[in-house]
């Protein structure tokens, strides 16, 4: 009787775990007329979870990063959200807005945008506001029919964002049709880029006026969250914390790394671009850090806690009890 109950419980937990892992790498999420491709997924716990509130594999859910792959050309207002289904929006694919015509476009902070992403796009409100984008492809703003406003707070890697490659493989300047506007604060970030030559900067009220006009002075449109506030992108997978004084156990942190040989998301391009999940395990007792490529919480009714964790790395599988001891 007891054995059958254990098997039933294990099955139930496994089903729960499967349900929690909604999307795998390569899946397409569609929401509000915008398509996203999952670049990487990994298991995390809820941001406010502690070891006392995690009872088994069912408390883990998948999170990760997605890239926007398609936006409808007919929509007047486009809002790219900061996150979709607990996945962070990190990039825009090549030529995403190529030749599009929209009234207003709102973008979150991004890690990358692909080649020619905003090329030949027309924004009817008169300006396209770019927040923090860490890396850009080639000819990103080529013949953009709008003022380009950089409202940045971080540095960037521009690459050849203001250059384009011609049919004969030569590089020529590529620029928006209208003005490039920056805040005085962001000016230092564009210093090493061609945009510096043909940009106008302002600070204080003057710059705010530009941004407000780009969104037609619509406060609600501007209030799209730039940074997700709900801890969905919490990288903490599991920890023996909050027992900070405990000298046993381990911390697991999930992270995404660039796929080898594809360190820039353009070239042969964002179509083939994925990132790789990695779990960093810090053993508190031995004070060693080990990286693993996969992580599986496994229900086991035979154990006192009812479950254990399994990692897959270069040296094969490693099983840990929750107090950090290896299961041989």
């Amino acid at each position: 009787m007891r054995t059958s109950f254990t098997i039933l419980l294990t099955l139930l937990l496994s089903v729960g775990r499967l349900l929690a892992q909604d999307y795998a790498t390569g899946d397409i999420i569609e929401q509000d007329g915008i398509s996203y491709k999952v670049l990487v997924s990994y298991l995390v716990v809820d941001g406010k979870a502690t070891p006392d509130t995690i009872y088994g594999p069912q408390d883990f859910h998948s999170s990760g990063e997605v890239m926007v792959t398609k936006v409808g050309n007919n929509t007047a207002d486009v809002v790219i959200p900061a996150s979709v289904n607990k996945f962070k929006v990190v990039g825009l694919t090549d030529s995403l807005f190529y030749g599009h015509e929209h009234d207003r476009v709102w973008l979150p902070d991004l890690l990358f945008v692909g080649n020619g992403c905003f090329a030949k796009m027309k924004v009817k409100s008169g300006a396209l506001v770019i927040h923090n984008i860490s890396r850009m492809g080639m000819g990103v703003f080529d013949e953009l029919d709008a003022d380009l406003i950089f409202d940045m707070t971080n540095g960037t890697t521009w690459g050849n964002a203001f250059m384009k490659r011609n049919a004969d493989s030569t590089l020529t300047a590529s620029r928006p049709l209208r003005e490039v506007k920056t805040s005085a604060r962001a000016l230092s970030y564009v210093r090493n880029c061609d945009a510096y030559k043909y940009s106008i900067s302002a600070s204080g009220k003057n710059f705010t006026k530009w941004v407000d006009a780009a969104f037609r002075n619509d406060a609600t449109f501007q209030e799209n969250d730039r940074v997700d506030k709900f801890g969905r992108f919490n990288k903490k997978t599991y920890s023996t914390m909050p027992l900070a004084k405990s000298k046993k156990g381990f911390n697991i942190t999930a992270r995404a790394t660039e796929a080898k040989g594809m360190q820039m998301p353009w070239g042969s391009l964002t179509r083939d671009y994925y990132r790789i999940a990695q779990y960093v395990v810090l053993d508190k007792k031995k004070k060693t850090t080990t990286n693993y490529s996969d992580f599986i919480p496994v229900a086991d009714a035979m154990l006192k806690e009812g479950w254990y964790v399994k990692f897959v790395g270069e040296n094969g599988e490693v099983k840990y009890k929750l107090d950090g001891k290896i299961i041989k």
Partner: protein
Amino acid sequence: MRTFALKSAFILLAGLTASLASFAAEEQKPAKENNEAAILADNRRGEKFEHNGVIYTISSIYNMVEAGHWEVKYDSTLGTATAKREGINGLYCNRYGEVIVSGVSAQHVDVVINPKFVTKTNYDSNKEEPIIFTVIGIEDNAFEKTSLRNLILPTGMKHVGKEAFKEMEITSEQGTFFFPLQKRVLADAFDGLKARLFLTFEFYKEDCHYDKTFRNTDLLPEIYVHHNNSGHAVEGLDRKLLYSVGSEYQEKWTPDVDKKSDIKTTDVTKYQRGAVSYLGDKVRFKTLGENTVSPTFNIRKARKFNKTNTCLDIFAPYEYSCYNPYTSQQDVYSEFVMNNNMYRVKKGKEYLYFTLDGKPITDKKSLTDRNGKDPFGTQILNDDEMKAKKNTQNLNNSVNNLRNQLGF
């Protein structure tokens, strides 16, 4: 015997008459000016003249002994003059001046104000030597309500007056008024300016002061600077007022006239050249050259001068402090001029003459020509003195004739 006595009596009488006449002339000499009285550095201070469409007011004119002299070539077609230093081995007395801009004489034209320019000395009737003028400031309301195609200014001027460019209009295609950094700009200089205002800051490192220049922001035009200068701190300039732009905009907005002009708004090296709008380091000279025992002159700002309550009063005229090793005296003069044999200085209203090694020439009348002018072309004898001098000369001539006749 009788003839001899007659001759002696006549000669005695003639000598007496001559000495009397000379005594009378001595009496008519003007009284020596009090040293404490205000010294006018140059009597042409405040005079206005026009040059290439711009009206200038003379602030001061000063002479300086230098190796070489300025050879000037005038281009009648362009109406410009270029100066080149010649004859470096010899010592020459070169003329310099400082002017402030008072306005323009024409509308709807390109106006280029060079930091330095050369003109013929028609302000000094007898001299053909050039004066090299430096533009040191702009008067209050100088360009108010004018309409110009373009206006190009030098950098580093000492002073730009109140409302200097108020409601000025730039009518060129570029519609941009490039304003280089000046040492001080007074209140409301750009109120209601009908042009895009572009402030340039290249290579000017001295302290600059903008006093309430940008206070009524509603009346101001859009003000631009280059990105590179957007961090440039100037007292009285609120950075939030400014837009900064890249080189491409600066080049696009640069006026056509800039390409023909000596000073260029985009060429920084030209700015460096124009950045000296004041008497430079070379303010000390000796009449016989350096390493000699001769009078030493220092040009300095006049401590006292007549004030007229105009913009000109901001700029003190120059005066010469001199130590003369021959007389071991220190003195202050308002004018100085020199030729190959002597130099002349003016103290109060009196002209004093010295040889180049500093020995005073006391017999000034011997230096004057038949018109009563001294070797520097200045009329120093008045009508009465001229009459007395003629009488004395006539008497001397007659005495000499008599001597010749009588065989002395």
